[in-house]
């Protein structure tokens, strides 16, 4: 009986016999990543609530940008599971440098910036749900979405330690 890809990856990680994801056969992995799979991995890479609609847009872009997207998502999920990770800090260091880590950073980039790259022709995934704005939502309004009433912005300086929950 053939090993599932997840079992193979787990075994490789646990025994220290890690090889880069690109060298692995795609046993048991679908040819294309699903939105659900993308969301599952996104929630492992980001410790916050994520919008499903935005995730579907990013997933579609990821599938185009990374031909082996499904395999990479599976690899990341396996690494997280191996550590029984509850947050990204628990396992991100286990993601090998190179294409897999670059992919993981791209997923995080997409959620935080709301677009596909820092270039001017980037694809926009979201403005209002871009996580960068959530980190300062207690004091800075997203441009074009004011949250205070007339003349109600004169307030004390908010400390850096008050990270909003999002």
């Amino acid at each position, binding site marked *: 009986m053939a090993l599932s890809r997840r079992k193979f990856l787990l075994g490789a990680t646990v025994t220290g016999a890690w090889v880069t994801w690109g060298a692995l056969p795609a046993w048991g992995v679908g040819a294309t990543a699903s939105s659900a799979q993308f969301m599952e991995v996104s929630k492992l890479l980001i*410790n916050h609530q994520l919008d499903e609609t935005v995730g579907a847009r990013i997933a579609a872009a990821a599938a185009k940008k990374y031909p082996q997207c499904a395999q990479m998502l599976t690899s990341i999920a396996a690494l997280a599971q191996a550590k029984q990770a509850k947050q990204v800090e628990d396992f991100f260091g286990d993601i090998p440098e190179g294409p897999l880590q670059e992919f993981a950073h791209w997923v995080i980039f997409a959620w935080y910036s709301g677009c596909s790259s820092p270039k001017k022709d980037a694809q926009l995934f979201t403005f209002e749900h871009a996580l960068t704005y959530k980190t300062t939502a207690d004091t800075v309004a997203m441009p074009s979405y004011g949250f205070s009433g007339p003349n109600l912005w004169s307030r004390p300086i908010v400390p*850096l330690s008050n990270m909003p929950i999002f």
Partner: protein
Amino acid sequence: MSNPTSADVVIVGTGVVGVSIAETLLDAGLSVLMLEAGPRVSRAEVVENFRNLPLALKGDPSSCYPPAAWAPHPMASIETKEDAYLQLSGPDRYAQSYIRYAGGSTWHWAGTCWRLTPEDMRLKTLYGVGRDWAIDYQTLEPYYTRTEYALGICGPSEPAEQWPPLSEGAARSKPYPMPPLPFGPGEQRFTDVVKTLGYSNIPTAQARNSGTSYDDRPACCANNNCVPVCPVGAKYDAATALSRIEAKGAKITANAVAYRLETDGANRVIAVNYFDQNKASHRVTGKLFVLACNGIETPKLLLMSANARNPNGLANSSDQVGRNMMDHPQLTMTLTLAEPYWAGVGPVVNSGIMETSQGAFRSEHAGAYFRFNNFARNRFVTFGALKKGLVGKALDAEIRRMTACTADVVLAHEVLPDPNNRLTLSDKKDWLGLPKPAIHYDVGDYTRKSAEVYSVPIGKRIAQAMGATDIKLSPQFNQSKHIMGGTIMGLDHKDSVVDADCRAYDHDNLFLPGGGAMASTACGNSTITMVSLAFKAADAMVRQMKGA
């Protein structure tokens, strides 16, 4: 419905100058026909354009105003050298941004409305540099007040916080129609810090509704999006006035690119020719004509209208059309701060240090004004934070820290009129086959010396007092997008294009009001002075028409 072809007054341009004149003329019972090169769009459309831009373009004030093929305007963030609209040369780049849309560039202005001082208008007499104005401050003051009420400009009632400072010759005839807007936390901290250096950071007089509705527009609610567009219309922009002046009888034809003025045997203007978006040519006639299409498009149209009687272009017997191009050359200090300031709470420009623009030093070098840029910082710092490769709590903390603990302080300078800073017609053509503007520009030693011995040293002292741990100063002067000087005003027709009413010396029924007529720049934004000149010109037009 066919477009109208004649009116008492034909106005080219529907920006703040054009609509202010139009409303004055309509109220006096005159008929008005306005031509706008670009399209007419809704606020909702522009706001949606902004929201749908990728983050890298959200800081560009023009990006949510894509130019029409027939009415190009500068798009510095995306245009290539090959398709650039402005053809720039010289030691400094006159890289302006403006919008050819109905409503003009007030769509994306910050609303800042600093008056000139009496001294700003007498540089030659007081300091031996530049030019004196053809009018003095007392003559302009009633028009400043009129502008403050027409646009809805809020400002302080305390004389110590007003600009210009209360002095002999600078008295205000009326208070501002609305009180100033409160400071956000970063501006308040900046104000407290510069006070320790002896500087007063005072509330910006600005065309934005403070705590109340005004002129059928709502109160500002701190969307922090004045540039590139106010989502709710709390900030004045000329687009808010278009429907009102139409209700008063104005006829507005959009997508109408004026390309030539015709003159008769007496050298009076008799018609404007324009192309529509299908390249079909049309002709409109009138009794008076106003070119209010900004300090670049107005001189360009005058130069394009050269004819046998006016071989160097209309209004150009002085050879000053397109010369003396001016702006407020600015340097930006991007600071990393030890403690949070939280820029981005409130409107984008809300305060400034103006007193540094004045002094006897102006015989030697330019003055400067300093402002804390109050734009939300996320859009500027996000890529930098992500590039560090952080994840999880560390990434959140870094974005939050960089948003709170970075700030831009802008040093905006005055510049002198120099005939060598010149707009001409390029041999490169636009979509309609019309020449693109070519502009040679050098900010000059007067301004460069200011940066060297005055403004940058002050800026660094401010940065140090703010607790900056890192200072990045822009390596060259950038433009403030305050276009001035291309049709300069003066008392002598031999070295000036327009008289004290912005009437062309060469054509007694042609008016060229706005920033192009300004004879000095000072350091503060030019719009309130442009509109004040527009009202003065409009009064002259009414007198001329009623006396005719």
